[in-house]
């Protein structure tokens, strides 16, 4: 079946990275379109009129939106290649729970680290480390959250590894010394081409944040 896949995305978005990793893990060819979020394309506004956000996966002209939903969709359509979600309902529900935890906690708290200062920043940093430690405990002795292989939770969380350097410099702390197991997990994921090819240079992410702060008028 002729499959036309277009991904509307931005290089620095951890949400977009999830989709890219999933597509690459499954060896699915797709066309990548870099969006300028200060000047959104007609295609993006047409394909995601509700939220006007990336990523959007356009499959044979039909849009799928929201990164977690896109990854699940890709996993269901191309279910025979590198499955990301378990086939049993209970482990699937656990995977969804932890992906939801990452969604609710990591991005927003991480954002506070580079947009605030002083006590507010310190508090956000402590909260952030707390969440990483919770994830570490969930990982336990497994190589990946998905068990022996990369799974849905790994794909959901690993993009933030490219933002760790930016968080550390902004908040003046070390993730390695607080959560060594999680860093080991991240480096293990980076051995996968689907991940190393997708995640940007952490220094470039940090530069991006500095420019974004200027634009938003944050010191």
């Amino acid at each position, binding site marked *: 079946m002729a499959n036309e896949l277009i991904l509307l995305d931005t290089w620095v978005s951890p949400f977009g990275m999830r989709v890219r990793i999933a597509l690459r893990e499954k060896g699915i060819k797709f066309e990548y379109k870099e969006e300028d979020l200060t000047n959104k394309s007609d295609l993006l506004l047409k394909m995601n009129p*509700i939220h006007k956000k990336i990523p959007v996966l356009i*499959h044979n002209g*039909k849009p*799928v*939106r*929201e990164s977690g*939903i*896109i990854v*699940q*969709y890709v996993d*269901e*359509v191309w279910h*025979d290649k590198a499955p990301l979600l378990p086939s049993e*309902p*209970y482990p*699937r*529900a656990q995977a*969804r*729970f932890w992906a*939801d*935890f990452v969604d609710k906690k990591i991005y927003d708290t991480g954002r506070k680290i580079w947009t605030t200062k002083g006590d507010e920043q310190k508090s956000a940093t402590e909260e952030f480390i707390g969440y990483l430690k*919770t994830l570490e405990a969930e990982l336990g002795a497994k190589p990946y959250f998905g068990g022996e292989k990369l799974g849905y939770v790994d794909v959901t969380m690993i993009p933030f590894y490219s933002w760790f350097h930016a968080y550390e410099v902004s908040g003046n702390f070390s993730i390695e010394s607080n959560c060594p197991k999680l860093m080991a997990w991240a480096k293990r994921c980076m051995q996968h081409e689907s991940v190393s090819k997708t995640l940007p240079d952490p220094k470039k992410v940090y530069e991006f944040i500095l420019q974004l702060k200027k634009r938003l008028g944050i010191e």
Partner: protein
Amino acid sequence: MYEVDATCRYLQHIDYFKRESSPQSRCRYNYKLCEVTPNSVYHTLHRLNRATRNKPSPKEGAPQQRASMAEEVILLDTWVSPFGMRARIALAEKGIKHEHREEDLGNKSDTLLKMNPIHKTIPVLIHNGKPVCESNNIVQYLDEVWHDKSPLLPSDPYLKAQARFWADFVDRKVFDAGRKVWVTKGEEQKSLMEEFIGHLKTLEAELGDEPYFGGEKMGYVDVTMVPIYSWFHAYEVSGNFSFESHCPKLVAWAERCMQHHSVSKALPDPEKVYQYVLQLRKRLGIE
């Protein structure tokens, strides 16, 4: 490369057979690869599949068999929670016997703290001793385990993705704006109410002329959204307006859902919800 009947449900064996070409090879389901020529493999696999079609392998039980075994289902919940109502509706729609336990969120039970140590929130579904947390996650889990009874999510991946998108919209936009209304006042509250109504109008547009978001029957998005209907009276009295005048189609949809026993039984008396909200605002020092 081997050709295998595309309708064969053991399609996943292809990769194994492609890697191994020895006649003694066995796949993880213990089917023996008898011959290596393409046609013979096709016939052998197909013959094996037909012979074993009625015998599920030991590691995999058919979901229907699992669901009919003695099931212990407990729901930790509170009467007024729209999130808990979602789980209640799904359980009732599928006719799943369960024990409902009312939690006092000012004094959480040991069971709740043990079953949801991360968030410590309700609802929590405990199925044969194992917890499932987060309301939409619970509804999807129930739909997967009891998939043969009143399916809520479409089977087509694209339609499923659309249903998940709108359920996510209900969570992040509708419920979030609706919740903030109760912890604010004055101009801020007025602005949030307008935002809330805006989101309801977006949902109305998505519903269109269908009787339900799920089409001809109630589906995942209906179950996710309808609980907020029990809070409409509280919004209307507090904000001194009528939803009927802003979103008549959505109100009609809600009343259609209320014709279902699963919904009318799960949603509390709107007047009781209003009294609850008044007390909540007093406790928070807002009123």
